[in-house]
C-alpha cells in the first residue's frame, strides 16, 4: 500500500509528557495503516518556518503506534456497519532542536503537515518453529518508538518476542508506560536508575549466550553506537539482525539524496527509500 501522494493536514488529538519525552497523537483520515519501522515527515501548520527562519524542512519521525478509529453508524448498530474514521498515529519525541522543539509544543486541535507512511519495514523472523527463540527487540532512548508497533505486530502474529530497552538517565527516558505497558520489558540504564546498571547491549549479550539464540532474530533501534554494537554482536553470533536507522533527511521520498549512508563495499544507500530498516552489515556504520 503506497502513501497518498503529497502532504496532508492532520489534527493533533493529544500531546502529553511520557517520562522525559513527549508523546503526541495525530488523526490521519487518509493514509494507509503504517508498517512497523515506517516513518512520516512532519511539520506544524503554524509557526514552522516563521520563527528565526528555522525550522524549514519537515522532520522524520518513526511511528510508535497506529490505531484504527471507528464509529458505529447511528441508524444501524450492527458491528459490520462500523465506519472508519481513519487512524490515530502516535509519535514519541524528544526536543533536540528547532524542529523537534516545535513538535513538542503541539497543542490539541493544531494542524500538522504529514507525508507518509514512508520507508520500508522489518521482516519477520525466518525461524518460526516451536522451539525457535523468536524475536528480540533492542531499543535505546527515543529509538524505542518503532519497536512498540513492531512488538504489537509480532504479538498479533503469535511470534514470541522479548523486549530489551536501555536509557541514559531518567531525564532521557520515556514511553515505557505508554508504549510498553502491556508486556514484560527488561531494562538497562547508564546511570542505574532503572533495571540493569549498564548498557542494553549487556542484556543482549547474555540473551545471545543462551543456547537457543541461533534461531533468534534481533531488531534494534537506538543511538548509532548502540546500533553498531548490536550489529557487530549479531554478525559475530550468526544471528539475523535488522537495524532501524536515522540520518539527516530533507524530503523522506528519495528526492534530496541527503540521507546517504555508506555501504561496506563503497557507495551509499538512501535511507528514506532503501531503509530506514537495514540488515546488520548492509551499512558500514550507523553513524550517519
Amino acid at each position: 500500500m503506497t502513501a497518498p501522494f503529497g502532504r496532508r493536514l492532520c489534527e493533533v488529538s493529544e500531546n502529553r509528557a511520557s517520562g522525559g519525552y513527549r508523546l503526541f497523537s495525530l488523526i490521519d483520515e487518509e493514509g494507509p495503516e503504517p508498517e512497523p519501522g515506517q516513518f512520516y515527515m512532519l511539520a506544524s501548520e503554524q509557526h514552522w518556518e516563521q520563527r528565526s527562519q528555522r525550522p524549514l524542512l519537515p522532520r522524520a519521525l518513526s511511528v510508535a503506534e497506529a490505531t484504527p478509529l471507528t464509529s458505529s453508524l447511528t441508524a444501524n448498530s450492527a458491528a459490520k456497519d462500523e465506519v472508519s474514521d481513519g487512524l490515530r498515529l502516535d509519535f514519541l519525541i524528544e526536543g533536540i532542536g528547532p524542529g523537534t522543539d516545535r513538535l513538542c509544543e503541539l497543542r490539541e486541535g493544531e494542524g500538522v503537515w504529514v507525508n507518509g507512511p514512508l520507508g520500508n519495514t522489518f521482516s519477520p523472523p525466518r525461524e518460526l518453529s516451536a522451539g525457535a527463540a523468536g524475536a528480540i527487540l533492542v531499543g535505546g532512548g527515543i529509538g524505542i518508538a518503532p519497536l512498540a508497533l513492531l512488538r504489537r505486530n509480532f504479538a498479533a502474529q503469535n511470534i514470541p518476542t522479548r523486549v530489551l530497552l536501555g536509557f541514559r538517565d531518567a531525564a532521557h527516558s520515556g514511553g515505557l508506560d505508554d508504549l510498553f505497558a502491556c508486556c514484560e520489558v527488561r531494562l538497562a540504564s547508564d546511570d542505574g536508575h532503572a533495571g540493569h546498571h549498564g548498557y542494553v547491549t549487556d542484556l543482549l549479550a547474555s540473551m545471545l549466550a543462551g543456547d537457543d539464540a541461533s534461531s533468534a532474530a534481533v531488531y534494534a533501534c537506538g543511538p548509532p553506537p548502540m546500533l553498531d554494537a548490536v550489529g557487530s554482536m549479531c554478525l559475530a553470533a550468526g544471528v539475523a539482525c535488522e537495524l532501524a536507522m536515522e540520518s539527516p533527511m530533507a524530503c523522506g521520498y528519495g528526492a534530496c539524496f541527503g540521507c546517504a549512508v555508506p555501504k561496506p563495499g563503497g557507495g551509499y544507500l538512501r535511507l528514506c527509500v532503501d531503509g530506514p530498516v537495514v540488515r546488520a552489515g548492509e551499512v558500514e556504520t550507523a553513524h550517519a
Partner: protein
Amino acid sequence: MPDFCGIELRHEVINASGTFDAIAARRVYGDTLLERFPFSAFVSKTITPEARVGNQPQRIWETPAGMINSIGLPNKGLAGFLAEDLPQLAELPVPLIVSVMATGRDEFARLVTAVGERPEVAAMELNVSCPNVHSGLIVGEQPAETEALLEALRPLTEKPLIVKLTPNVADPAAVAVAAAQGGADAVSLINTLKASAIDPATGQPGIAAGHGGLSGPAVRPVAIAQVRAVAAAVDVPIVGMGGISSGADGLEFLAAGATLVAVGTENFRDPRAGDRVAGEIAGAFEAARSGSLSRRHS
C-alpha cells in the same frame, strides 16, 4: 499553454534538476504520481559520463530559511542512465529534459550526442554551474569558455539546449550573453549559492565537504536580481528559480522576465508543490483577466 523552445507545456512550473527523483517517487507514491504529475516538464538529475556515488555525508544542513547541500551528483553514468533510468522517465506524462555535465568538451559532446538522439528526450540542460563539483565551476564562470562549449555542442543536436547558469559570478548576464551567442536556446538560473555553516556542536562545517550550495527562500531576492539582469541582456527564454514556494513567488520570477519557473527545495517539504504553485499562478492570471485584481502598492 506556455511554449518553451517549441515545446508546448501544460503550465509554467517545472522542477529544478536534482530536487525530485521521479523514479523513487513512483516507488513511494505509486502511479498516482503519473496521474497528478506536479510539473509540466521533468528535469532529470544531472548525469555524467561515468557513474558517481556522490559525496561523503553529511550532505545537507538546514539554515535560516534555506538549506545547504553538497550531494556530489550521484548518478548511474551515461550507459546506466540510458539503459535503466530513461525507459522509466519516458513513462512520465510530460516532456523530459535531461541534465548533463562533463569535465571536458569531448565528454560533454559524447553526452549530448547520445542523449540527444533518444526520441524520449525533449531537451537537454547543460550543467555548467554546479558548485559542488570542481569541474563544473570552470566553464560556467567564464563567458569565453561557455561560448566555446556551446559552439562545440550546438551542431551535435537539433534539440533545445538550456544552459544552467551559476550565480557565483560577478556578472551572470555576461555568461548568459555568451551562452546565447554560442547557440543556447534558453538559460536557467539560479543554481545554488556557494555557502557554508558551522555546526556549533563541533566547531566544524556542518557539511562534510566544508561547503555546499544554498537554496530555499533565503536565496530568492538574489535570484530575482539575477533573472532581471539576464532578461535585460538576452532574448532567449529564461527558466527562473531560487526559493519558489508559492504562486506569488513564481509570479515574481515571471515579472522579472522568466518564461518558466522551477520549484526546487519546496519539493522536499511538499511533494506536490509544483502543482500547487502552478495552480496559484493560474489563479492569479485568471483573477487578472477577470479584472478583479486590485492594484496594490506595498
